């Protein structure tokens, strides 16, 4: 193996002209933004107000400084652009093997701009890159596309949904991981880029091996001490569906488009049920010790918690095989499972009947093809509900469909949904970690007390995590304390949790500034009215009342103040970006 060239480089691809060049990433960008989400957000500056489907809008694949090393859970990258679903700046972190192979090709990042006159595949190796004609792959599913490119390394591809501009289409990693939620598959499709394949043999250097190894041992010890990670009922054993029973017990599993918060039949798709039905085996991202992904004995990828809950409870479906088939269909069509299921659920409530198990498969195909009713459903729940004259039925924030944690059951989560820069996402501040999973400590899930600062700190910390790029699940055990040491070991430069949170704060505020320039205001930082007017499913000694709107608003104002924003959520001046590196 050869050593990685330093400084770090990115490949800039202009699909309109077909020109490609490797250029050095300014070192000050890496110091100020680390990589991944942070680097992508920085590279987007100046083009953040362009249309997501405009040729000049970049689509950025950015790894992080730990990628390519044995740092646990770090074989990941972030994909950054502007979302056609939400209109916000958008990033998504994904694992698999793609990021690791991209680094091994001698690249820290790829920036794709322009629009190819015909479908192409970008093929990258450590010795060069080329654009391949992909007319034969256009219209093909993700699985067939990946198989066709299997001799070119790891593949990130879109399916028919991305080609047809479904607003919640994914970019799928060949290993089954998704760049999900915000429709970046459609951005890729708008550029006529069917897939990116990467391969290489370069090694990421570690500056201080002893320090790195010590930090890695600390991380692994914390993983082993974490019941959520390596506990016998944890995600390593059962994958994220380990949460199904817990969310049922906590009475916060969104059911029938969030009309209720308990689904009596949820045990049909719980972690143990999936293991029993499919002989689930451990699988996961390159080099990850957790192996939270699960595959059936026949090799099929098995669904995550959000997927089983939303194709299950949210649509009133208890048939596990329907849920697994829906997951596989979405993966092959290249669509986000959360938004697909939530959009079907909103549509179902609007028409007075949730889709039956038999209807789900054809509906998913119709969405990906924009055929019949699928054409409207491909627009996501907000546009569907508005078109049907029932805007209140879209359970979304900034047009991003909410995942499977009902905000009436976790008030930090309620606040975090609205402050998330990419819309209704659970992973930005991830308060489920302390409100439900008690990591690193427990907080009172039915209280707003202290939540404004908790959410702010967690958003900053997780922006740093997304810039490293590491997996959020690692932080059910470890903390930035150990990951700062890993980073110091790799780079040879000192980092601390505090310095990383400051980087995260810069990333978060930059994103918010971009969103503000795209017209987002405090009015967009709001939950659907249902959560303030309708109770969840109380019982078993747990009361799930509607959220107190006045208290929610007060905590949001507090959050803005902690962030240094005005009470209306705006920036106190227009010069924020100029002050950033």
């Amino acid at each position: 193996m050869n050593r990685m060239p330093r400084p770090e480089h990115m490949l800039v691809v202009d699909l309109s002209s077909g020109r490609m060049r490797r250029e050095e990433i300014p070192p000050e960008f890496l110091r100020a933004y680390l990589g991944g989400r942070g680097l992508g957000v920085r590279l987007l500056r100046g083009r953040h107000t362009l249309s997501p489907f405009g040729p000049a809008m970049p689509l950025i694949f950015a790894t992080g400084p730990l990628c390519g090393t044995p740092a646990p859970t770090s074989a990941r990258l972030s994909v950054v652009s502007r979302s056609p679903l939400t209109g916000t700046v958008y990033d998504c972190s994904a694992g698999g093997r793609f990021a690791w192979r991209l680094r091994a090709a001698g690249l820290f990042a790829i920036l794709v701009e322009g629009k190819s006159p015909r479908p192409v595949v970008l093929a990258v190796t450590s010795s060069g890159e080329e654009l391949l004609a992909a007319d034969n792959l256009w219209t093909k599913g993700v699985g067939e596309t990946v198989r066709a490119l299997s001799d070119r390394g790891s593949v990130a591809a879109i399916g028919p949904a991305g080609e047809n501009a479904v607003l919640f289409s994914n970019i799928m990693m060949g290993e089954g991981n998704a760049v999900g939620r915000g429709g970046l598959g459609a951005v890729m499709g708008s550029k006529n880029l069917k897939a990116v394949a990467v391969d290489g043999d370069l090694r990421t250097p570690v500056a201080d091996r002893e320090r790195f190894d010590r930090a890695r041992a600390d991380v692994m010890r914390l993983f082993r001490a974490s019941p959520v990670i390596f506990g016998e009922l944890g995600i390593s054993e059962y994958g994220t569906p380990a949460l199904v029973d817990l969310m049922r017990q906590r009475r916060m599993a969104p059911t029938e488009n969030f009309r209720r918060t308990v689904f009596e039949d949820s045990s049909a798709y719980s972690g143990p049920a999936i293991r029993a039905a499919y002989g689930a085996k451990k699988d996961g991202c390159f080099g990850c010790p957790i192996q939270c992904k699960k595959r059936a004995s026949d090799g099929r990828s098995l669904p995550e918690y959000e997927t089983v809950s939303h194709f299950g409870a949210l649509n009133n479906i208890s048939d596990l095989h329907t849920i697994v088939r829906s997951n596989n269909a979405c993966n092959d069509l290249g669509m986000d499972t959360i938004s697909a299921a939530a959009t079907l659920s909103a549509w179902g409530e609007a028409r007075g009947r949730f889709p039956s198990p038999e209807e789900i498969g054809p509906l998913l195909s119709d969405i990906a093809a924009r055929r019949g009713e699928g054409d409207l459903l491909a627009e996501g729940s907000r546009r569907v509900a508005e078109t049907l004259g029932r805007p209140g039925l879209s359970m979304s924030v900034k047009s991003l469909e909410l995942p499977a944690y009902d905000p009436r059951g976790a008030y930090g989560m309620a606040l975090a949904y609205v402050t998330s820069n990419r819309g209704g996402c659970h992973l930005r501040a991830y308060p489920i970690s302390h409100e439900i999973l008690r990591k690193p400590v427990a907080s009172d899930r039915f209280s707003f007390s202290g939540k404004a600062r908790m959410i702010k700190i967690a958003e900053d910390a997780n922006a740093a995590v997304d810039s490293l790029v590491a997996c959020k699940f690692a932080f059910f055990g470890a903390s930035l304390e150990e990951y700062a040491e890993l980073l110091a070991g790799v780079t040879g430069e000192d980092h601390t949790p505090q310095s990383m949170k400051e980087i995260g704060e810069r990333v978060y505020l930059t994103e918010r500034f971009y969103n503000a320039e795209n017209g987002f205001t405090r009015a967009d930082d709001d939950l659907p009215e249902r959560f303030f007017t309708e109770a969840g499913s109380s019982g078993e000694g747990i009361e799930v009342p509607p959220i107190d709107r006045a208290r929610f608003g007060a905590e949001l104002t507090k959050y803005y103040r902690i962030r240094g924003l005005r009470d209306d959520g705006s920036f106190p001046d227009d010069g924020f970006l100029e002050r950033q590196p």
Partner: protein
Amino acid sequence: MIAKYAEKLHRDRSVVTGRLGIAAQDDVMLSEGAPDLSRLAADVLSHLSCLGVVAAAPSLPFAEFLLRRAEAESIVPLDTETRTFLHDIPIVRRGKLAGNPAAAIAALLSKRKGVVAEGIGIVASGPVTLEQAYIHYSSVFHACHVKYLLDVLQDGFRLPGEEEAFRAFREERLRPPSAEELAFRPGPIETPEDVLAEVRAVGRYTVERGLVDSFFGNISYRVGDTIYISQTAASLDELAGCVDPVPTDNRSTTGITASSELLAHRRIYEATGARAILHGHPKFAVAMSMLCDVKDCPVKDCWKDCTRVRMLGDTPIVAGEIGAGGLAARVPPVIGGPGKAIVYGHGVFAIGKDGFGEAFRSMVDIENRCQEEYFRRLDTRAGGEKFKPSS
């Protein structure tokens, strides 16, 4: 919240009365306690992206002695809790506290959870909640306590005032734990309501009698095919609503929030037929478990790799990491006969055939025996014999 943790720190006797400052910030900074320490806590907190800071003079001078005895810039306790969660404890000497002590302390707290500041005491932060700052303070206090016991046994007293302070600790402060005046339900306990009530009561006893560091430890009771076990990061003195019922056949994963030692509890139940398990971190037992007189042993990481079963009186000592790391394999085979076992550098597991009374009294007995044995060795050491803590 500030008042709650101030009261806890005083109640568990880990701070000098009145020498405590706590700061917490939401959209405004709040601080309470001794004026100098609350001001320091607030100043430190203003440098950090955290929820809370505790700054206090510990009720024992052991952390200060460790700082002054240390040649490096950190204290490195070798007990398992510290290895796992704190890693090491940075120290800041008086010279670096001149000028802007808050900045000097905050610089170290930006890397670790707690620091020892010369002439001030222990300062700890809580990144997510104020409770975390309390926990981290308490963990540093506990870690320094255990390490100092071992260091004194190994190296004797080195500094002026140490011997006198230690004598005062031994003769005036030390209260051997006891089970006296505590009421335990006779087993077997059959209904979930009774189990939960007893688990809450015994958890509280364990904290009140000083058998844990801060409030950590875990407790469980088995009824039929259900294990009722305290949740991870649960305060043993506040277990209402923090006990998970976990089916033994794993048909539900609700227990994903259960203690990290769930697997150990399950295996102990399988191996012994017991109904009750109590796990705590009594300091003398933790310290004594780390003493080994085997010379030239090839095992370097004794705390996790030692496969021997050593005996401390009639109590077996085994090694093993927390959680999925090995403890769950090594404790069950040895605990059935004696009804108790010590995990190297970690704490005590004790079982009850039917109820918690037996387990609690076993833990008390172990700690008292370890205390007696510790002072016997210390007194013997004064006569010239040394015992070397293993790594």
